[in-house]
C-alpha cells in the first residue's frame, strides 16, 4: 500500500477547484497540482507524475470535451495512471471513450453532482486509485434501461446487483447495501454472469470489466 495518493486536479471554476482541493486534503489525498485547463493538466501530470487525475470534462481552451481528451491522452501515455472524469450530465459516450482507454481499469466516470456527497466521492476516488472502475449510477441506470434481450432475462434484483457491480462495489458492499448475505449476492452475480453468457470469475475487476464491456457493446 503506497503511503499517500498523489492527485492532480483540473477544474476551471476557481471556487469549485478550491472546494475540491479542500475535500481531497480532508480525506488524506496529497494534491500535487490544481489547474484550470486541459493543456495545464497535461503539463502538470508530466511534471508531477501523480497516482490519480481528477478532471472536469468541459474545460478551456475549447470548452467542449477538452478535459476528457486530455485524460485519454494521458492514459495512453501511462496506462497505470488512474483517471476520474467529472461530467455535468449523463453522457454514455464519454464513459465508453474513457473505458476504452488502456485496459479499462483505474478509470472513473462520475456526474459532478457526486462531489456533494463528499465521503462517498472520496471513497470512489480511492477505489479507482486502487485499480477499480467506477461508473456513475445514473449512467449505469441509463444503460440498463435500454431494452436488450439478454438483460430482459434478468430479474429485478439481479439488475440491481448488476448496477452495483458496474459501479465497482464488492460483493460485501453490495450485500450491506441490499441488506442480504454476501452468499446471496454471490449467487445473484453467478446467475447474472451465467445469464449473460460470461464465464464466472473470482476476480472482482475482471468481473466488472466483463459487465462493462457487455454494456458498452450495445452503445
Amino acid at each position, binding site marked *: 500500500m503506497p503511503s499517500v495518493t498523489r492527485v492532480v486536479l483540473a477544474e476551471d*471554476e476557481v471556487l469549485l477547484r478550491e472546494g475540491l482541493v*479542500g475535500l481531497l486534503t480532508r480525506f488524506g489525498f496529497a494534491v500535487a497540482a490544481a489547474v484550470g485547463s486541459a493543456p495545464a493538466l497535461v503539463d502538470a501530470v508530466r511534471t508531477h507524475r501523480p497516482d490519480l487525475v481528477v478532471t472536469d470534462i468541459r474545460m478551456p481552451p475549447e470548452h*467542449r*470535451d477538452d478535459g476528457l481528451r486530455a485524460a485519454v491522452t494521458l492514459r495512453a501515455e501511462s496506462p497505470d495512471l488512474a483517471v476520474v472524469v467529472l461530467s455535468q450530465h449523463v453522457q454514455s459516450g464519454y464513459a465508453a471513450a474513457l473505458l476504452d482507454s488502456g485496459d479499462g481499469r483505474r478509470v472513473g466516470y462520475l456526474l459532478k*453532482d457526486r*462531489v*456533494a456527497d*463528499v465521503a462517498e466521492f472520496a471513497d470512489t476516488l480511492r477505489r479507482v486509485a486502487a485499480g477499480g472502475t467506477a461508473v456513475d449510477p445514473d449512467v449505469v441506470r441509463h444503460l440498463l434501461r435500454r431494452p436488450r434481450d439478454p438483460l430482459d432475462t434478468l430479474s429485478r434484483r439481479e439488475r440491481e446487483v448488476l448496477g452495483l457491480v458496474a459501479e465497482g462495489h464488492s460483493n460485501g458492499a453490495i450485500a450491506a447495501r441490499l441488506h442480504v448475505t454476501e452468499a446471496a449476492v454471490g449467487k445473484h452475480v453467478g446467475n447474472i454472469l451465467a445469464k449473460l453468457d460470461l464465464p464466472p470469475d473470482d476476480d472482482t475487476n475482471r468481473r466488472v470489466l466483463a459487465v462493462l464491456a457487455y454494456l458498452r457493446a450495445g452503445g
Partner: protein
Amino acid sequence: MTQPSHLAGALRRRHYPLSAWPWRALAYAATTLPVAGVLAVAWSVVVAPLLLVVSALRRDRPVDVPALAVLAALALAALAVAPLAVAPVAAVERWRLGLVDSRPLPGPLRRGPIGRFTAAAWREVAYCAWLATVVPLAYGTFGLLVLLDVALVAGPWLTGGGERIVLVWDTVDSPAGAVPYAVAGVLAAPLLAYLAGPLVAGQAAVARWLLDGAPDAAALREVTRSRARLMGAYEAERRRIERDVHDGAQPRLTSLTLQLGLARLDVPDDSPAAPPLDAAHEQAKELMVTLRGIVQGIRPRQLTELGLAGAVGDLAARSVVPVTVRADLSRPAPELVETTAWYVVSEALGNVARHAGATRAQVRLAHTGRRLVVEVEDDGRGGADPDRGTGLTGLADRVAAVDGRLLLASPPGGPTILRVELPCRP
C-alpha cells in the same frame, strides 16, 4: 406520374393531344376574345389623342387643338382611374386563367380605393393594355394563318369553275394544280392546332406574371432571411444563457454543496447544527438536479460538447429502438442549422419510439451541395400524418424558420422516411 398543373407543363407530355388540355386551351382562347374586345374599345379612349394627331398628319391638315385637348384630358382621366377600373377585369382574368393553369394565383391585397394605387394594380393595368393590343394582334395573325390553311384545303373546289386563284405565292387555275397545296394544307392543320397550344400557354404565362398579386419574391426572400437572422439571434441568446448558467451558477452551486458536505463532516451528529446543515446540504443537492434540468432544456449540452454527429450519436444511444447513425459531415454547419438538425433527429426518434412500432431506425447526416440533409428512416407501420399531432407540424415550423424543407414519406405499412434539407448559408 403526376398530372401537369398548367398548360406549358402539359405541352411537354406525349399524351397532350389526347388529354383535356387542348380543349382547355381552346376554352381559354375563346373566352379571351370578348374580354380583349371590350378592353380594345376602352383602350381606344387612351390612344384617341394619338390617333387624332396621326390622322391629321396623314391628311396634311393642322391638328385640331381643342379636340386634342379634350381627348388628351379624357385619356389621362381614364389612365388615372385605370387601377380602380381594371380590378374586376383582373379578377375575371385570374379566374379565367384557372382554365389553363390550376396553380393558385393570389390577387393583391385590397385596401380600399386609395390602397388600390399600388405596383400590383399598375401591373394589372399593364396586363389590360397588353390584352387590348398585343393579344388581338397575335390572335389576328394566327387567324390569318388558319384562313390561309382553309383556303389551301379548299383550293381544288375553288378552282372548279376554271377560275384562277392565288395560293400563297403561286397562281393555279385547275383543281389538279391545287391538289398539292390542299395536301400541304391538310398536313399543316394539326401543326396549326398544335401551335395554338404554345400560343395560349405564352398568353397564360404573361397573364400569370402580370396578375400575380403576391409580394414579390425578393421581398419574400428578405422576410425569410430576417426570420432566419432573428432565429439566429435567439439561438445565440439561448447559448449565452446556457453558458452563463453552466460556467457560472452550476460550479458555484456544486462548490457550495461540497462545502456544506465538508462542514457536516466536522459537526457531531448530536450537535444542534447537524439537522439544519443536513437539510441545507440536501436542498443544495436538489437544486443542483433542478438546475441541470433547466440548462439541458435551454440548449442540448451534447451539441456544445460533441458537435452534431456526436450529439446525434448520443440521441441514438438513448433511443429505445436500436438506431444506427451514418454521419458524413465534412465541415461544421452554422450553429442554428446544427441545433435544428439535432431537434429534427430528437423529435423524429421520439416519434419512432412512440408511434412507429419500429424494430430499428437509421439516421443519416450528410452535406449535399450547400445543404445539410438529415434523414431518419424506420421500419415501422408508416402512416405518419402531420395532422394527427405527431409533432411533425412543430418540426416543419422549426425547419421552415431556417428556410429548410421537410419531406415525409410514410405509406401505410411503412417504411417511414423523414428527410429534412437545411440550407447552410455562410
